[in-house]
């Protein structure tokens, strides 16, 4: 990891003169999660951090910076969001310089804090080796099983390397392997009856505080100030404090990202109530894959299936010719 971060800094320094800014991660107020760093001067480069605490998907900043020359550091999953943004022409490839990395898995800050207890002494480093995560606290290493501290999305990671990039830094590798993967919420839901599923969501949504952090964190939410959730024209959702209205908003968000969501997990990571809302998107993604044989964010040259009109879909035979 040490060599990767040095190589990353060297590459960014080389590229910086030709760019308006580079987005990377730096240490922030929370010892368990690094924050975004917007680099415009060479001196900032030294502040870059790169380890399993670099959770945030930085690709979400790119549409807002359209027109500027931006460098961006991405993990495997972040790169898929970036590809989706390219496919939807929300960003321009020639304006983006991508520094790709191999990710060993991202820490779930909430779970790690619970497992580690007090962090008052500070946290010097975090690393993932094989099936465990090592936390160095005040010079003392603590080792925890991955299943306890990694983000849930990492258990189903489909590629830890940034596939689309201009500069790949470090070695290529496999996603983290967890021996005892906890069952996903989607799997749990599939074992339930329809009625149980509704109760599950009513229960979850009764905790939703409608802060819309999930929406704000989503790199593919494009509506900016015109979200259907807060509009009267059209009036899809009202402000009643009822699980039904909250679930309606989640359904809208899931449908808006159907076939686009790359399962970067930002919605769940941002949710202060820890609601398993990515599950809704995963369920739709499965249908999209069955129907269109398509996975979002894998190929910049492919068009998302729901953004195209074809008289006959390859896998949906409506007609006999």
């Amino acid at each position, binding site marked *: 990891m040490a060599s990767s971060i040095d190589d990353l800094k060297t590459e960014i320094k080389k590229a910086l003169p030709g760019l308006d800014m580079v987005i990377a991660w730096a240490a922030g107020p929370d010892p368990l999660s690094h924050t975004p760093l917007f680099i415009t001067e060479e001196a900032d480069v030294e502040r870059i951090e790169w380890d399993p605490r670099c959770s945030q998907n930085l690709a979400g900043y790119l549409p807002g910076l359209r027109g500027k020359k931006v460098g961006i550091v991405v993990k495997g999953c972040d790169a898929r969001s970036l590809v989706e943004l390219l496919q*939807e*022409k*929300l960003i321009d490839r020639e304006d983006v310089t991508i520094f790709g990395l191999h990710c060993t898995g991202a820490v779930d800050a909430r779970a790690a804090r619970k497992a580690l207890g007090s962090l008052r002494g500070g946290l010097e480093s975090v690393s993932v080796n094989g099936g465990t995560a090592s936390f160095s606290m005040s010079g003392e290493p603590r080792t925890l099983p991955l299943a306890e501290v990694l983000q849930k999305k990492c258990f189903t990671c489909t590629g830890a390397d940034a596939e689309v990039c201009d500069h790949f830094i470090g070695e290529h590798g496999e996603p983290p392997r967890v021996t005892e993967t906890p069952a996903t919420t989607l799997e749990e839901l599939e074992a339930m009856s329809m009625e149980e599923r509704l109760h599950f969501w009513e229960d979850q949504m009764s905790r939703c505080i409608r802060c819309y952090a999930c929406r704000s964190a989503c790199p593919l939410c*494009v*509506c*900016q100030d*015109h*979200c*259907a959730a807060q*509009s009267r*024209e*059209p*009036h*899809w959702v009202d402000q009643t404090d009822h699980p039904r209205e909250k679930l309606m908003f989640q359904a809208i968000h899931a449908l*808006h990202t159907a076939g686009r969501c790359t399962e970067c997990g930002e919605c769940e990571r941002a949710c202060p109530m820890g609601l398993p809302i990515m599950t809704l998107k995963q369920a739709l993604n499965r249908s999209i894959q069955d129907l269109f044989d398509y996975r979002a964010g894998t190929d910049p040259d492919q*068009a998302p299936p*729901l*953004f*195209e*009109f074809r*008289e006959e879909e390859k896998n949906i035979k409506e*007609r*006999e*010719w």
Partner: protein
Amino acid sequence: MNIGVFVCHCGSNIAGTVDTEAVAKAALNFREVVFATDTMYACSEPGQAGIVDAIKTYDLDGVVVASCTPRMHEATFRRTLERAGLNKYMFEMANIREHVSWVGKDKEANTRKAEELVHMAVEKLRRNDYLEAGEFDINKRVMVIGGGVAGIQAALDCADGGLEVVLVEREPSIGGKMSKLDKTFPTVDCSSCILGPKMVDVAQHPNITLYTLSEVDSVKGFVGNFDVTVRRKAAYVDWDACTGCGECATKCPSKKTPDRFNEFIGTTTAINIPFPQAIPKKASINPEACIMLTKGKCGACAKACPTEAIRFDQQDELVTEQVGAIIAATGYDLFDFTKYGEYGGGRYPDVITSMQYERLLSASGPTEGHIKRPSDGTEPKDIVFIQCVGSRDKSIGRPYCSGFCCMYTAKQTILTKDHMPDSQSYVFYMDIRSPGKNYDEFTRRAMEEYGARYIRGRVSAIQPKNGRYLVKGADTLLGQQVEIEADLIVLAVGAEAAKGAGELAEKLRISYDPYGFFLEGHPKLKPVETNTAGIYLAGSCQGPKDIPSSVAQGDAAAAKVLALFSKDKLASDPQVSGVKLVRCIGCGKCESVCPFGAIEMIDFRGMPKASVVETVCQGCGVCTAACPQGAIQLRHFTDNQILAEVNTLCL
């Protein structure tokens, strides 16, 4: 808003299973409804007068009629509102006939459902806006797709009416099925003698552009302004240079080419003119049979051609034509006679289709009009005709009657006797269907004057026997089995939709039935219109038809086009999508999903925004579903209107 509700009895159609009075009474409790009544026939003269009176008396500014489908009478009632001085879009229709009274018998439940539908219509109407239709120019050219007798007739009528016509035909020559027939019923006059002059008229008419060996590749646009791209397939012959002398065909060494025009009875050459009366009379090469095109060696035709017209390197060519209306006249195909194993079609050489028999009878056919058995070339004596081969049979997915087979079989028995006075014809039939003018007299003549023996019953098996065939069947009138020894068996194959009809319908965006026949706008009242404005139907593409009916429908389609083009401008439908610029973020998703290319991205103060080309928009609403922030809305069907309907029903 003052809303009036009118609940129609439609005679007993609705009132029989819906308590219309109760529905009207319930409607008075809905928001902003100030007047509600039930009425015998809302669409009738007094019914409409009642609506106009109520609008004036109660100062209504919106009307709900609960009656039949909007397809039937929405336009009628909108005109009623206009007459009363209201904007015609301040109208909603609740379909309580097709959706309620015709499908349910429980009067109580029906009444409840009708009330709910009326309530939904009221809530939608409360959110309706005044809409105004715009105007657009029309291109007064017409394309006719298919050069059979229906298409020829439609093209000639339109051209005589002063319109520029583009006639597109898939085969190398126009003429269609009729050009293959020997004689026509019920007059037994020569088919090519009556069709030939019409074909020549097409060729010589200054207003007609003829594209044969061509197919429609794509259709864009809308009524008055279609862009049709036609694929002109390579003939491998420069038709400007070809004089139709036929020298090439005499020199072509590939003499065993299957002869499509002659229904594969006999063979032809790889380069040929399909038949002597072909229009245009130009040679074309069958690329699958041509030795030069398949093996790269030969070129005998090129050497023989006096005008050096052969072009082995010719490619398909795409031509785009701008037209204002399209007449589809793509005809039909014949049922595949090998599907009935018991008749031995395809296995026994002397079991042939009626169209093949037609070619044997024709003086310009492969046998020069002498009836000869395909197996040994001898003249048959006993001929069995089997009717309804591929018609009226649910088991093979052809439950419909092809309509013309009874008549052509009768004609063929008459011609058989004319050709061979010693012959005997037998006809196995289910029922004889001869309802046209002079038709029943004609079938009687076949039996009584020409001695054709009609046997009511089906054939169960045909077996070869000593160079002849044993036909085993039932005579259901006598109630006994019959066996007939025959030299030749003619299967009266039925009609099915032309190959590729479904694809063409999709390109034209017109509806088609499960069998592939194109759907008319209304089975009784709009027999030549489709549900797509500006597209009309002629001939058997709509359903099996004989020559008189096809010609009549060709005339009718031309009349529709001439009526359409009698105006200089058409009114555009204001029920189309519109973009709210402040909301639009210019993501372009609407543009990429639009099936009609009706959305373009524009630059608005330096920002990309979507913009709807209103004349191209068909109001399908796909863009409104794709737009994440609701910036694009379908007028008259906004999200809020639909949500209001859903909430009325569900909350």
